[in-house]
């Protein structure tokens, strides 16, 4: 209103790109370690062990009983485990834990103001913390994918090794790792946003979880409005009409990958808008 009477700001030199990079790397330095070593990370490690467990049993059974199914069956077994246990449970809730708490955790611990008082755009804070969350998640869960994948073929000995060297296994593994990364990118952005939006982000997380879970049983149109639809379309071994999941018409990779990335960027953009107006109010001070 009385704008004219305020002194004009000095020429607002835009922050150079190189400074953003060092600010983001400063954030990574601090944050990745924190996400890997905090108490909350214990839950992540527990989640990461979950998908390994059935394959340990699988190995134990092979050792004790001995009769192994055909190796193609084994890759179906892994595909089933990956799509249900890994995507639907483990990665989903790992994202809930890590990404809803990117900012909310700092509010709970009354430490957000230290970030807000740095000469860093709030948008850069969002991106920096998000990337840190991604790195930490990838480190834990890509190891988990690799271990569980190797465990499936371990009982096959030489035949299993051939499956890697001259068979499709390496391709499958890389695809699963790619899907894992995409899943973290997508769900991570979603839960970063819900963590900013809702006072109790567990409720939206459960709602989204149920939606993603029943999604496969919905009409083809509705299936398209979910993250898991695209992720599952990208899995290398389709589950052909099994009891677990029926994908109406899988989205092609040229659509799924850029689509997921676009949605991720859009949600991150919304989160940036939201955080620009975020105020520090810890309550009980």
């Amino acid at each position, binding site marked *: *209103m*009385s*704008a004219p*009477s*305020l*002194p*004009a*700001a*000095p020429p*607002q*030199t835009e*922050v150079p790109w190189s*400074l*953003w990079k*060092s*600010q983001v*790397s*400063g*954030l990574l*330095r*601090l944050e990745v370690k*924190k996400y890997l*070593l*905090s108490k909350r990370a214990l839950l992540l490690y527990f989640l990461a062990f979950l998908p390994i467990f059935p394959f340990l049993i699988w190995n134990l059974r092979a050792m004790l009983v001995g009769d192994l199914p055909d190796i193609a069956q084994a890759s179906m077994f892994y595909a089933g485990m990956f799509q249900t246990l890994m995507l639907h449970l483990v990665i989903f809730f790992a994202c809930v834990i890590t990404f809803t708490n990117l900012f909310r955790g700092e509010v709970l*611990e*009354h*430490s957000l*103001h*230290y*970030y*807000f*008082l*740095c*000469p*860093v*755009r*709030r948008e*850069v804070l969002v991106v920096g913390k998000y990337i840190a969350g991604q790195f930490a998640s990838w480190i834990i869960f890509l190891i988990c994918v690799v271990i569980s994948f190797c465990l499936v073929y371990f009982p096959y000995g030489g035949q299993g090794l051939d499956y890697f060297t001259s068979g499709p296994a390496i391709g499958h593994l890389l695809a699963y790792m790619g899907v894992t990364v995409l899943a973290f990118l997508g769900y991570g952005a979603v839960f970063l946003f819900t963590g900013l939006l809702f006072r109790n982000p567990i409720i939206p997380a459960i709602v989204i979880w149920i939606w993603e879970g029943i999604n496969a049983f919905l009409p083809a149109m509705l299936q398209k409005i979910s993250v898991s639809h695209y992720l599952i379309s990208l899995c290398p071994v389709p589950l052909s009409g099994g009891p677990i999941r029926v994908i109406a018409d899988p989205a092609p990779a040229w659509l799924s990958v850029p689509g997921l990335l676009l949605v991720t960027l859009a949600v991150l953009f919304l989160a940036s808008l939201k955080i*620009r*107006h975020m*105020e*520090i*109010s*810890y309550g009980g*001070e």
Partner: protein
Amino acid sequence: MSDSQDIIFRNVSKFYGEVLGVNRVDLNLAPGITGLVGPNGSGKTTLMNLMTGLLQPTRGEISILGLPPDRPELLFNRVGYCTQYDSFPRGMNGFQFIYSFLRIHGLVHPQAEDMTWKALEMVGLQDAAKRKVAAYSKGMRQRIKLGQAIAHQPDVLVLDEPLNGLDPMARAEIIDLFKRLSEKGKHVIVSSHILHELDVISDQVVMLSNGYIVAEGDIHGVREEMTDVPMQILVRCDKPAMLASRIFQEDHAVEAQMHSDGQGLLLRTRDADSFFLLMNRMVTQEGLRVESVAPADDDVHSVYLYLIGNQGGSSS
């Protein structure tokens, strides 16, 4: 004289929903030490959070050295804020705490390391640098926060109750640090709920009450403004008659009314400072037992009274 060296509030109000934080604040702060004084809940923290963009004003405009508070990437190259929140990122030692955030500022390692040691030295915590902040005493935590706020050598230093929890030695050192910074032409904005703590060092005082600025200017001006008009004080004590007779031996008392139960009096004085000095003398030297002292009118004076009456009552 509003140039971009100043901190300017134009008709700024902040409401937390229905709750008033501050209302219709107009301020123009020049470099130097500014004391922001007011009782708890008067709006000091709100004002400081508005200054630093941690809160957004419901109405009005703020300019810090010509910069708007909602541009952190520009603002915090020049502003440092030591908040009242006694919380720290987990698991860090004193060095890491300051260093990590300097890295987020975008500084490279050698520079950040150098500035961290400088800051630690300024607040006298070099020896405790490698100990966990969580194991620090309240006074050390207060100082490491201060160190963190000045580490990037800001031109504007905002400090929310920075003397809280410091022992007299540390207090003197920190106040000395404020003086040195202000002599370099920087803004040092310090809040306190104890006027006495700040009046000697402040170049200007802003007095807050219930979200409004009630007085502003150099400390002599504020004192005069406050002492011009007589104010009412309610004292409950064991010898009100004696107190009354002593008051009238000095020339600032206007009126005194005894309570009917003989356990108190209502007085009007033009100089609450002198009254408190007198009363304190009677307590220490003549065994006067004071049960309570309270302002009898709830206007500007009562705030002042509260502030000066609190002289010994700094929390630890």
